[in-house]
């Protein structure tokens, strides 16, 4: 008989040490995050959550993130499909370019956007048409879109890659156009992946700080999203409002992570 490791009465030292490290870190993370949530007394927290400033930040965050996520989805679907299905010259390079914002510090992305939409010819042109991006809520959307598009592209591409192209081939022999096969077969099959990508993109755009700070600025009650509210109130020492903004951001990230895990079946895509 070979010794059955799982049936041994006690875990081996190897297993015990690795598990101990894991559990210590889990406890550490929970304590840190929970500590923030329970830091202010509950009535004070509720009062802060209902303050006009936080309510404004919540509304602005929801609106801008919804719009930028919608644009991310619309843009990411054709890009992700092309990267997953078509072979074209420069495909590898294209892949890398779409991934740049993943590793680029958002602050840098923000400065680049600021220069592109500000002093450049394009920025001046937009300005003449009345589309002011810099230091406006529109800038928030532009910044969120730029930084979060690669997340949507990655998740969506991975969803398309798991679908056998023969489904589309069969659909086309059954009378579908290329568009029809995509709409009736590929999109429904990619549904879980699209939902997962949408949730993670939305959650990332709610939390986006660096790029938004650079492009849209941090103007109280104008470009004040939740992370900006957190930043502004921390810098003025108004801890209760800062914690309130944090608590909302924690809730959003926990919920969206749960939804994401459910739709990707726990498969990592990053």
């Amino acid at each position, binding site marked *: 008989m070979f010794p059955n490791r799982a049936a041994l009465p006690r875990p081996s030292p190897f297993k015990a040490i690795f598990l101990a490290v894991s559990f210590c870190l889990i406890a550490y993370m929970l304590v840190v995050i929970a500590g923030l949530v329970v830091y202010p007394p509950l009535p004070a927290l509720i009062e802060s959550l209902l303050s006009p400033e936080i309510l404004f930040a919540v509304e602005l965050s929801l609106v801008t993130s919804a719009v930028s996520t919608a644009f991310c989805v619309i843009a990411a679907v054709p890009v992700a499909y092309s990267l997953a299905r078509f072979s074209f010259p420069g495909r590898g390079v294209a892949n890398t370019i779409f991934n740049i914002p993943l590793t680029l510090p958002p602050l840098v992305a923000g400065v680049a956007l600021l220069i592109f939409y500000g002093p450049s010819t394009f920025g001046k042109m937009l300005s003449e048409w009345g589309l002011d991006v810099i230091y406006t809520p529109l800038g928030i959307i532009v910044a969120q879109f730029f930084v979060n598009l690669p997340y949507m592209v990655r998740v969506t591409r991975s969803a398309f890659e798991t679908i*056998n192209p*023969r*489904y589309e*081939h*069969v*659909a*086309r*022999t*059954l*009378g*579908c*156009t290329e568009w*029809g096969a995509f709409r009736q*077969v590929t999109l*429904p*099959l990619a*549904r879980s992946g699209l939902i997962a990508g949408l949730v993670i993109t939305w959650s990332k755009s709610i939390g986006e700080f660096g790029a938004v700070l650079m492009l849209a600025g941090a103007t109280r009650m104008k470009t004040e999203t939740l992370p900006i509210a957190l930043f502004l109130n921390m810098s003025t020492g108004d801890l209760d409002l800062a914690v309130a903004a944090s608590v909302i951001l924690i809730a959003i990230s926990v919920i969206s992570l749960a939804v994401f895990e459910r739709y990707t079946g726990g498969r990592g895509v990053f």
Partner: protein
Amino acid sequence: MLRIAGLAKRLGDFALDGVDLTVDDGEYFVVLGPTGAGKTILLETLAGIYSPDAGTIDLDGLDITRTDPKDRGIGMVYQDYMLFPHLTVGENIGFGLKQRKTDPARIRESVQETAALLGIGHLLDRTTGTLSGGEQQRAAIARALVLRPRVLLLDEPLSALDTVTRERLRRELKAIHRATGTTVVHVTHHFEDIFALADRVAVMQDGRIVQTGTPDEVFRKPATEFVAAFTGMENVYCGVSRVQNGEATIDLGEIVVRTVTAIEGDVCVGIRPEEVILSRRPFESSAANTFPGTVAEIRQNGMFSRVVVDTGLPFVAVLTRQSVARLGLVEGEPANVTFKASAVHVFRR
């Protein structure tokens, strides 16, 4: 009539290299070839999934080389079925009719009719994941057939199935072909398929067609070493099998072969040349089949010799050169052919 001329397509490691084929209306045409010969690309190019690099495809006198797949009237069934997992079996079968904007009542009727023909009428409300392999394959065939395609392309339709299901579905394919009269192009690497199904066969190798003919011609007179080696059964004869107490006697006309099989009726048998034993005189052994004959031909082939002994039917045996010398086999002299019952491979015709 489907006429393919000079068809070429390069796709990664696979390629078609000047394929010429003609498939008659209502014919069951089998393309036989090993894995990687380019069979699936051939079908996908016929279906219009890929545009060929060169050559033409002509269907009923119409050049369809550049026609969109949806307008070709060619149905395709993949080895791994490719049933749409987000639709029920019934919705899968009705998918093509829905694209044609057929009236829903008419779709239901056609779906039921076709499903009944394939014996899956009771499965229409099921999701595709709950079906067995054989049921999925029937559903995939029904989905293509319901559109009454001018040509039905089958990509290894029996390969993913267990032996029993494969045998049954093979018979059903034959029956469906007879019932619908649809022209079928079926690609396979199982040579058993051609006896049961094919009106004509093309053998494919490295993206080329190396031989075309009736199953009999291809097996009896392999055009190339490759065909002979791939089919591997040179001693192929057809006759009638009768089974009694688990033992079968197969009347091949000139001789009667004994073997063990459950297959009765019209069959073909194949015996590999290396399983045929030759001797000058009959000898007592456990082998069930011994026939006297005359050495018709001895051909040197490297270390081995191919010896043909005419026993009423010509049997090919492969012997070492030393054995030929030791036995003193000479063309025109008598010799006996012996093989065991287990050396006889039986296929339904």
